[in-house]
């Protein structure tokens, strides 16, 4: 028994319990998917499952990473207070709201939503623009305050200048 366990570990790369637990999980998932197959919906199901992973890992993530890196590249290199986080927060929040509510904001579900609710989708775009505007305005205000504080701190002793933070730090 001990020998068998060791042999499995050598070949498999983990304890036999690891293997059993994973097989149990696959069995459960397979059993659930069987019901989707029985409902003749497995093609769309599998496609959307794969698209969910690809859409996040190979599309959404690279997009927001590149957006963030480019923003940092084009921002002033030695500001008194780095501006990046004052952009990240409102832009990130606004894009998150758009990502969640785009069917209503862009009116893509206007027909089905209208038939169900008797309501229009027209106001959602304006709300999104307004909320986005307010968030950027608040962020700008917060940046102005931070800038003012930093300026007060920095100006009097000239020797303090050397301790100024690195760009983007």
């Amino acid at each position, binding site marked *: 028994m001990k020998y068998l366990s060791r042999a499995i570990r050598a070949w498999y790369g983990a304890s036999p319990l*690891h293997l059993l637990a*994973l097989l149990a999980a696959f069995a459960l998932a397979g059993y659930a998917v069987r019901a989707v197959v029985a409902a003749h919906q497995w093609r769309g199901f599998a496609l959307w499952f794969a698209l969910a992973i690809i859409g996040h890992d190979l599309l959404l993530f690279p997009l927001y990473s590149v957006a963030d890196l480019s923003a940092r590249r084009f921002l002033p290199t030695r500001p008194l207070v780095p501006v990046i986080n004052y952009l990240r927060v409102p832009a990130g929040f606004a894009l998150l709201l758009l990502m969640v509510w785009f069917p209503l904001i862009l009116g893509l579900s206007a027909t089905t939503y209208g038939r169900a609710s008797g309501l229009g989708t027209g106001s959602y775009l304006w709300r999104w623009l307004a909320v986005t505007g307010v968030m950027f305005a608040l962020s700008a205000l917060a940046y102005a305050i931070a800038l003012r504080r930093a300026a007060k701190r920095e100006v009097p002793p000239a020797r303090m200048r050397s301790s100024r933070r690195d760009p983007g730090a």
Partner: protein
Amino acid sequence: MRGKSVLPKITSAILVARSAAAGAAHLAGDAVSQVVVVAREAAVRQPPGPFRPAFWRSPLRGRWLTSVLGLILLAGLPVLAITGFLSYVSYDPRLHGNDETPGANWLKFFFFSWPTHPAWLYRVNQGVHVTLGLALLPFVLAKLWSVLPKLFSWPPVRSPAQALERLSLAMVVGGVLFEFVTGILNIQDYYVFPFSFYTAHLYGAWVFIAGLVIHVALKFPKMVAGLRSRSLRRELRTPLAATEPEAPDPFGLRAADPAPPTVSRRGLLLAVGGASVLLAALAVGQSIGGWTRRTALFAPRGLSAVGPGKLPVNHTAAAAKITAADVGPAYRLVVTGRQTVSLTRHQLMALPQRTAVLPLACVEGWSYSATWTGVPLAELARLAGITRPVSALVESMQQAGSFRRVTLSAGQVADPRSMLALCLNGADLPPDHGYPARTIIPAAPGVHNTKWVNKITFLAEQ
């Protein structure tokens, strides 16, 4: 050719790893040797770009951050799963025709007869399910961000065990994204998916849960160790200027060559938490109702559904193709039991009435409370000659569409507040709310409160 190019790469990787390890030695202790091993293995014929550890430079990634985000999801996702399964139970799927997702009978072990008390049960369940789902989305995205380098770890497979584990991770990552995407699209009536929402959301949840249970079982000790590796209180006091990368870990979460930080860990957690609060706060008003509905800027039945005489609607009379002739003087309600009775709306109004304040809640998370007046279902059963019906089949005059017929349980029919409502807030039912008559069942899902009812069949005990 290959043999030649591999050697210098390995040597340089070892050198890099050694110098990095030497720098981190005071932080990491015995993790260092593992880092060297990981780096040496990873150097074997890596493709460029994200497959190289040096590609990942965020100084915030690390086992502590991943563990904190994991802990938050570990607290939230089970609540999401339980409210989701309760939502399924609330349809009383064991009753004839009620199961939207037939099959997989072994997965229905948790079924029970859905109660009518407390009346807010379904309202709260769905409000929590949808609002919590929105609130957890930023944490899901942050968690995925924190572990994304692992997707590109090289070589992609080191052992059969690791291959299977990666497959189970596809169930976790694909599952959580699939569930969030289908849920979020469904609450906006954006039916672009090529499957039934009910089937996909339910069985997708099982695939996700199967993967998640394994993931938690395998990672829980590492999460606990990760949480202990830094002090949360200290992190929440550490500003950007004092933010340093985490100690190297054997899992490859921390960047091999971290860039200078642009945000503190505290800042990142605050931003993710802030996004979570924002999404929830701009939606939860549609579930709470009252004046808070005005605050629900981004919710399908939030601010948009506020106005004089306005109440949220799930399915309009126009969409259900209810004509003026259907609801005119020719309207009859046919009640069947031991005997069959046909009633005009006038005759229904003449029957004993009952008024109750009851919530109406949709699977999509929105709800409202209203005053309903109508004939108790038990009264209609008596007219049909049945005192204790075991179930009732309620049918709508709506010709097509889901939920045009629903089976109610014995408990639902027996509850004195369950009624065939004729009036809403003291006036005749508006057409979109089911005129001439609709059922109102305490704690039942919205679609089980059938609108435009023209037939009720009570079943007696055999």
